[in-house]
């Protein structure tokens, strides 16, 4: 067995375009594609952010927004949820971080199939356009965005009592199907690159955890998105040509529909067979990024690297068999509760190990409180908070009173709406110098951090208590004025107002971040090749920002893992991965 096999990439010529268009728009360079993904994802993210303001304003000050009735509210939560989960988080973590980090951290010249990689972005853009086109359409036609909730449960998704049940839903499903195509093209690239195109010496057990997280997340995506794809196709057929896959005989608003015999629960199973892995698709890359940030900025090796890797793998595997914990109250087979509660709580063990290891990495470290580190620390705290509330919900009997209340809303915002977002922010502050050659402004970064961390925490933490009181989610109005009996104390309404104000403040604070990104791009302090003193390969490129092809004629050779910080007997506190062993001894 020859281990010194020469990777193909050194023999394969890269596509070097001559024109501006080919270089920056239809580029096949993974770094440019990463930026394209990132900017697009942030732009749609802002749309979702604005929608969340509208929702919050309605909840705190009912009736303040003219023309924001129940239809608009439901459309807003649906678009908000879907954009945030799929078009922002999945696209950002895998499309942007995946593209940027995988080849650089593996020591590859580019993705294995740069052309397919480029297509992936453009198809993603099409799906985004198809998703958002309802808003301009709304002005000129009576097409409305769908208000089915991001879970899209039939039959209501395609029956008349739901806004957008005629064409809004069709656009949404079509956009999702196209997104899946885009994801598949990108995902195949990431996986193949990680498996087949690492540089010499880069064994899997030396890969930075970021790459591990992206790797397992992508794999999960490739086998989970098919379930969404299939259910989207079947629902489209139900909607457009009148098949009855998910539709039993129903009488919708006085009208007998032509459907008969379908099974609504089937959709829920398919959706969550995708949906639960999906939440880990957005969590695992964030885990990886945070592991790297903590280790680098605490100047200490990550604690228990092997356990960290196996935990990621275990979470990936287990996440495929816990899906029905979202369906405890869905009326599924009653005995499934035992199975899914058990698997769900088992998955908490590897996750807990990760949390312990992040914390233990801080122990006897030498912690630099840089902006990326602040975000990483806050990630750990919000993730613990969100994770333990997941344990409440996972324990089937506790989910019974809490399901479909604000407790669930609080859980998933803690664990998905802020933890991965914090990881993304941390990652951007961390890699921006390599990407652009300039540092982001530290002070602005810190202000942004405090607003975002404390702000989101005070938004979501109290929501758990609304859930205990019994405030249901997806309610246009939770306090129905004097005519309906109030089922929760008026004090809860003040809580709602508080949450809304916090949400507005936090949202506006994001302008600081955008300002920082733009301003520093032109005026920021020049970054050195390795400003943080990190070990992984992306900091060892000959140029900053790395040129197309990333490396010189020779690819780097890896001699160690990415976490050699504070190795005894060394004059520096870090030893990069491509420093040979004997020199280091």
């Amino acid at each position, binding site marked *: 067995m020859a281990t010194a096999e020469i990777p193909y990439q050194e023999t394969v010529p890269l596509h070097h375009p001559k024109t501006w268009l080919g270089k920056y728009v239809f580029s096949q360079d993974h770094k440019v594609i990463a930026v394209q993904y990132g900017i697009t994802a942030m732009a749609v993210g802002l749309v979702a952010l604005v929608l969340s303001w509208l929702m919050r304003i309605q909840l705190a000050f009912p009736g303040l927004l003219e023309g924001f009735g129940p239809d608009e509210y439901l459309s807003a939560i649906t678009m908000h949820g879907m954009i945030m989960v799929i078009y922002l988080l999945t696209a950002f973590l895998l499309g942007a971080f995946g593209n940027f980090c995988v080849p650089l951290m593996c020591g590859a010249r580019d993705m*294995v199939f740069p052309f397919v990689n480029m297509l992936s972005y453009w198809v993603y853009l099409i799906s985004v356009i198809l998703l958002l086109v309802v808003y301009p359409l709304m002005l000129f036609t009576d097409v409305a965005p769908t208000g089915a909730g991001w879970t899209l449960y039939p039959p209501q998704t395609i029956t008349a009592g739901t806004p957008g049940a005629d064409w809004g839903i069709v656009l949404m499903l079509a956009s999702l199907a196209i997104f899946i195509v885009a994801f598949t093209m990108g995902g195949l690239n990431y*996986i193949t690159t990680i498996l087949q195109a690492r540089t010499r010496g*880069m064994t899997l057990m030396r890969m930075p955890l970021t790459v591990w997280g992206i790797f397992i997340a992508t794999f999960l995506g*490739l*086998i989970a998105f*098919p379930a969404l794809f299939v259910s989207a196709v079947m629902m489209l057929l139900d909607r457009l040509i009148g098949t009855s*896959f998910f539709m039993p005989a129903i009488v919708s608003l006085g009208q007998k529909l032509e459907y008969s*015999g379908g099974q609504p629960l089937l959709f829920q199973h398919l959706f969550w067979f995708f949906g639960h892995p999906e939440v880990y698709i957005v969590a695992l890359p964030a885990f990886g990024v945070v592991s790297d940030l903590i280790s680098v900025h605490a100047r200490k090796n990550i604690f228990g690297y092997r356990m960290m890797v196996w935990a990621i793998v275990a979470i990936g595997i287990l996440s495929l068999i816990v899906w029905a914990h979202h369906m405890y109250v869905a009326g599924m087979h009653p005995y499934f509760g035992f199975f899914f509660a058990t698997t769900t709580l088992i998955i908490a063990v590897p996750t807990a190990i990760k949390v312990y290891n992040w914390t233990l990495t801080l122990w006897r470290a030498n912690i630099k409180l840089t902006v990326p580190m602040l975000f990483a620390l806050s990630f750990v705290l919000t993730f613990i908070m969100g994770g333990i509330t997941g344990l409440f919900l996972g324990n089937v009997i506790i989910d019974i009173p809490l399901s479909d209340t604000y407790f669930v809303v609080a859980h998933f915002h803690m664990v998905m709406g802020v933890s991965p977002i914090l990881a993304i922010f941390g990652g951007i502050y961390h890699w921006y110098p390599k990407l652009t050659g300039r540092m982001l402004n530290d002070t602005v970064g810190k202000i942004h951090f405090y607003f975002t961390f404390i702000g989101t925490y005070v938004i979501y933490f109290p929501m758990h208590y609304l859930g205990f009181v019994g405030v249901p989610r997806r309610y246009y109005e939770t306090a129905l004025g004097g005519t309906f009996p109030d089922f929760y104390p008026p004090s809860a309404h003040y809580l709602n107002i508080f949450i809304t104000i916090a949400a507005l403040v936090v949202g506006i604070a994001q302008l600081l971040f955008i300002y920082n990104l733009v301003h520093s791009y032109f005026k920021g302090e020049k970054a050195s090749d390795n400003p943080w003193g990190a070990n992984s390969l992306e900091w060892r490129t000959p140029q900053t920002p790395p040129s197309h092809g990333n490396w010189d004629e020779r690819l780097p050779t890896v001699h160690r893992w990415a976490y050699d910080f504070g190795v005894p007997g060394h004059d520096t506190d870090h030893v990069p991965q491509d420093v040979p062993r004997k020199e280091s001894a």
Partner: protein
Amino acid sequence: MTETTAPGNESIFTATARDWSSDVTTFKGVPWGKAMMWIFLVSDTFIFTCFLVSYMTVRMTVTDPWPNPSEVFALAIPNELFGLQFFESSIPVPLLLIAIMTFVLISSSGTMAMAVNMGYQRNKKGVVLLMVATALLGMTFVGMQIFEWSKLIIDEEVAAWQNPMGAAQFGSFFFMVTGFHGLHVSAGVAYLLIVAWRVGRGHYDHTNFEIVEITGLYWHFVDLVWVFIFALFYLW
């Protein structure tokens, strides 16, 4: 340079572990394109299985009767041909067309396997011929499928949303699953023809012709899916 099978003196587990913990490439001796195709096929397996699981679920849940496919898809052998009388009356044979389609698809897999073999022998002419033959068989298959669809729609009045014999989902799943498979076959035909053309033009002369094997993987997968559709939809 690399062996393609694990050395005999190693247990499967050590062999697997060694490959996974090795340098540069995990799947030794597997070109990038082939690795990518395999992973894509895993993803595609999930698509088809989700379709089939949905089919199972709905078929088990509906209470409307499920038509007997072997009757629905029976083909009557005509009692006369070109004016010559063969039988007293026409004879319905269950699933006849499906059986022929199955044999056609299997044969196309056979020719594809030969094409791969020719590829590794660097026999370009053989590759092109066999791939074109495969594509032709694939087209035959799609053609027969179109015939079957039209027969079902016109003669038996089955549509995706209705079925005079019982559960409407019979038609829905039939058209959806075979339609999806048919799309795969059609895409495969196009893929085969493009690759055959490029092989003929000498596009891959500097490589080892693994592109033929990659195309073959896809094509065999399409055949594989048909095995399941045949058993689970037509025979069950």
